[in-house]
């Protein structure tokens, strides 16, 4: 028999979400969203249930519902099995150097290291850093290539959200994905309130006949591009997600169109004091709880952005925000946690921090793990047997069960002062850095040699493609 799992009470209830759903649908039908693209507007206009008013598109609730019902969320096995996991990194251009600990611009060498490190810790998601030492038009292609060559899960399932900044770039990544048998998707980031980036939409439009899976994300900011209340921002987020998804559904009928679980129902928080964007705040954690409730309601995969902070350094501030956020999200039922390694509201990547987070995740996971209620664990006979002055330390049961009963941390060691001094007085960051280096050195996964060769050929071709270069060249 198991002891009942720990869980969090409260949050948005069904009636409340029903109401929000109805209001989101009504807003889509009456206010609509802006579609700054002639071609897409034309496509939309061909469908029943669509009203075009200038460049605003409005959809009937039944049509929106169709789009939502058609979305397929093909989660990987590790998610289905309820495993705890971390998604680590996304487009950081600055990082802490793994050797020196100093802040610097990320390079292709860092990209390889961080991907190997992430893979060694079974992390998933997008490529962690942008290789700033290669030309702009090759950066995203190299990020995919490196991720596929050196890791099992990265850029390869529903928890990726990689950018393809131009049509030409998307085509190269697509070709590589096909050569490597890896996942390829295209994502749309909406512009809150209620609009799209015309260029981003145009790339999707041009890719629409290829049967490519497309996902949608939006990032309304409470008090700036959305109402000041978190609840209002969540409602706007629902509205934008559903309306945006409907656009994809109508525009890309050959592909699976879905809401990116990575940012589903995102409602960003903002500091009116520092006029800046905030992650890891109290309100952001509250938003995560709403997000979890909504994902359960709509049956979307749950992945929470709990590994974020506004701290610039891997310090107590960062650790506190991430641990509390993850614990609360875990209690609310989340098993997947996102943005590992990110500091400074997502601007800086820190490899050793991924090692620390891996430990924090295990720590929390072990607090919340299922506990057996049994005669064996009540140990009544042992209590009878050991009398005053006796000890349990030499008991057979102790010997047999101690590893099961205690979780052994690897980083948050339980040394006493003398032992710590004896071990070299290392800070957590130093220890994490050493562990990271060891994990990278020992990492062994590599993609099939022939596939690697093929990817190399495609990359060489990309290097010389002037159309690709032009597609991302800033005209100055």
């Amino acid at each position: 028999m198991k002891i009942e799992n720990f869980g969090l009470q409260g949050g948005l209830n069904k009636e409340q979400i029903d109401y929000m759903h109805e209001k989101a649908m009504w807003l889509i039908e009456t206010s609509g969203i802006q579609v700054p693209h002639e071609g897409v507007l034309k496509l939309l206009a061909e469908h029943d249930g669509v009203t075009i008013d200038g460049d605003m598109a409005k959809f009937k609730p039944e049509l929106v519902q169709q789009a939502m019902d058609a979305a397929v969320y093909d989660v990987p096995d590790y998610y289905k099995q309820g495993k705890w996991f971390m998604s680590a990194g996304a487009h950081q251009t600055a990082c802490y150097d793994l050797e020196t600990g100093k802040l610097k611009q990320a390079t292709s060498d860092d990209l390889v290291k961080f991907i190997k490190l992430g893979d060694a810790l079974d992390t998933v998601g997008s490529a962690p850093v942008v290789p700033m030492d290669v030309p702009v038009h090759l950066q995203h292609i190299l990020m995919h290539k490196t991720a596929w060559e050196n890791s099992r899960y990265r850029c390869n399932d529903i928890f990726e959200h990689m950018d393809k900044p131009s049509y030409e770039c998307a085509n190269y990544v697509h070709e590589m994905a096909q050569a490597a048998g890896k996942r390829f998707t295209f994502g749309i980031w909406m512009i809150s309130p209620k609009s799209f980036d015309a260029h981003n939409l145009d790339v999707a439009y041009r890719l629409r006949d290829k049967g490519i899976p497309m996902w949608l994300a939006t990032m309304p900011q409470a008090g700036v591009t959305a109402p000041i209340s978190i609840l209002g921002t969540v409602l706007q987020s629902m509205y934008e997600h559903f309306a945006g998804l409907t656009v994809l559904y109508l525009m890309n009928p050959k592909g699976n169109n879905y809401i990116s679980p990575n940012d589903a129902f995102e409602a960003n928080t903002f500091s009116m004091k520092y006029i800046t964007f905030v992650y890891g705040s109290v309100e952001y954690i509250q938003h995560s709880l709403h997000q979890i409730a909504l994902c359960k309601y709509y049956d979307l995969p749950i992945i929470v952005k709990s590994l974020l902070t506004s701290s610039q350094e891997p310090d107590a501030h960062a650790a506190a925000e991430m641990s509390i956020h993850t614990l609360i999200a875990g209690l609310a039922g989340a098993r997947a946690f996102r943005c590992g390694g990110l500091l400074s509201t997502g601007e800086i990547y820190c490899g050793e921090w991924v090692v620390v987070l891996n430990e924090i995740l295990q720590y929390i996971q072990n607090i919340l793990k299922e506990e057996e209620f049994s005669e064996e664990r009540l140990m009544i006979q042992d209590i009878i047997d050991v009398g005053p002055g006796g000890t349990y330390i030499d008991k057979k049961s102790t010997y047999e069960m101690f590893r099961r009963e205690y979780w052994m941390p690897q980083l948050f060691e339980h040394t006493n002062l003398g032992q710590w001094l004896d071990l070299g007085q290392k800070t957590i960051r130093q220890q994490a850095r050493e562990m990271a280096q060891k994990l990278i050195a020992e990492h062994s996964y590599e993609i099939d040699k022939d596939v690697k060769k093929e990817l190399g050929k495609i990359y060489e071709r990309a290097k010389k493609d002037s159309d690709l270069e032009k597609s991302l060249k800033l005209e100055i």
Partner: protein
Amino acid sequence: MFEELKASIIAGDQEKATGLTTKMLNDGIGPQKILKEGLVPGMDVVGEKFRSYEMWLPEVILSAKAMKASTELLKPYWDQNGGGETLGKIVIATVEGDVHDIGKNLVSMMLESAGFEMTDLGVNVKIQAIIDAANRVDADLIGLSALLTTTMLAMKSAIKAIRGSGSKAKVMVGGSPITQEYASEIESDGFAPDALRAITLAKKLVGKS
């Protein structure tokens, strides 16, 4: 009455501020005096309180709106009395390849409320369009915003192009990945890490601080 006007600006009480301004004008007080002794000192306090993080953005915006509505009332009097020019003309844009505009919009809004005449070109703007607009409005200052590292890197050549075009406008830069160090390296005239400091910077660059 000047103290009261100043207080109404600090409190962001638009109704009271415009009421007092109208009354003062009716009483024959010159617009210069109203501006210099009532409105501007009020906004100065707001600026200081914002800088010391005592007042927060929505409060400052409310004060700025009260200030704007009151200065609008002074406008018809400028022609007779002179002295109604703005602090300067600024062209602002998010650079090509970048669609992040939340920060740029806030900077633009704050600069306008501080008394600059703003031309906001939006997002994903080619440098030539920025140069053209600066020439068209005879801008004193150009503000460039970038949030992507790629577009941030392109700022360097953008500054060269602006200088090469013969434009007299100075260039200030901003956006979350940008640091003072980078701004100096690319030889911009100035950098500010947030919308409030952008006002101080802009005033300094046009010699009105």
